[in-house]
């Protein structure tokens, strides 16, 4: 075993000195480094600009509360005006409340509608909410001057 160890240790091992390949690879590595660096710089700039934009939006949301709504209106158009104000309250009260010239009511206007229940609509003036319309069931016997509110909306 020692013989082969000696043989390998004393073996004349050829060495290679390829200057051309050394320089060629060196220049390719330099190019690759700078192209990689350029990509990193671009990514960095993109990330910073996105972060700045998001920060501005966040700041604007806090400083101008209507900002988000304005942007939404600008991008998607104004759909809120078409919706009736009382729609939310109608859903809450599980009743069907709509203008008589729209939806099923318009088609069934000729039909005889049975009298089911009587409701009272009262208007209140509120300093905060303005005029408030309160819809309540009508009972002949009002107890302690209390009414049961079914739905409410303001305009």
């Amino acid at each position, binding site marked *: *075993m020692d013989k*082969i*160890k000696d043989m*390998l240790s*004393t073996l004349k091992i*050829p060495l290679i000195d390829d200057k051309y*390949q*050394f320089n060629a*690879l*060196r220049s390719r590595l330099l190019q690759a480094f700078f192209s990689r660096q350029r990509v990193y710089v671009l990514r960095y700039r993109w990330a910073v600009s996105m972060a700045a934009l998001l920060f501005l939006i966040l700041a604007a949301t806090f400083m101008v509360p209507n900002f988000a709504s304005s942007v939404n209106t600008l991008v998607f158009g104004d759909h809120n005006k078409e919706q009736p104000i009382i729609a939310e309250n109608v859903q809450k009260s599980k009743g069907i409340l709509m203008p008589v010239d729209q939806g099923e009511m318009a088609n069934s206007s000729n039909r005889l509608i049975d009298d089911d229940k009587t409701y009272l609509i009262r208007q209140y003036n509120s300093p905060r909410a303005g005029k408030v319309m309160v819809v309540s069931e009508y009972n002949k016997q009002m107890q302690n001057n209390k009414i049961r509110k079914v739905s409410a909306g303001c305009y």
Partner: protein
Amino acid sequence: MEERELVKRAKQDIQAFDELYRIYYPKINNFVFHRTYDEDVRNEIVSNVFYKAMKNLYRFKFLDSHRCSFSAWLYRIAVSEVNQYYRDRKRDFKLVMKKKNDKPDDPTVYPYEFKYVKQCLSYLKPFEQNLIALKYFEKKSYRELSEIFGKKENALKVKTHRSLKKLKNILEQEKDHGQDQRYA
């Protein structure tokens, strides 16, 4: 400048990386030269080694410099690339070897030529080839080998002993075969 500082700088500074390249290119180039047969293949593997080193240098950390130096890390990439090359071109390699074996060098001449030993070495397993190439051609110590292969020194000593035994048998077989051919 200390190697550790140079590697740290090379993560961001191409000039520092260039310095490392100047130091290690001849070593890696020679190792790959001793493990391959074709110049184009050698150039390709060496290129891959340095590209990968540049790309993954940010991952390299001197957490435990006794366990893995930069040199060992680079050799590890080179070993991996050489193995990958032979895995990818297993069939082609066998054909090349067969072609080379058609006209073998005269094995009866002692001391053996490097080319002949390299040829016989190719009959060993890739790990054994790398081990012997690094130990005897690149003159690496067992400590350095343990860093490169991530194994204990004693385990590598045993592996080297077994690999040498195999190589010795192959050399003797080839020698007998050569003598038979001469007298035939």
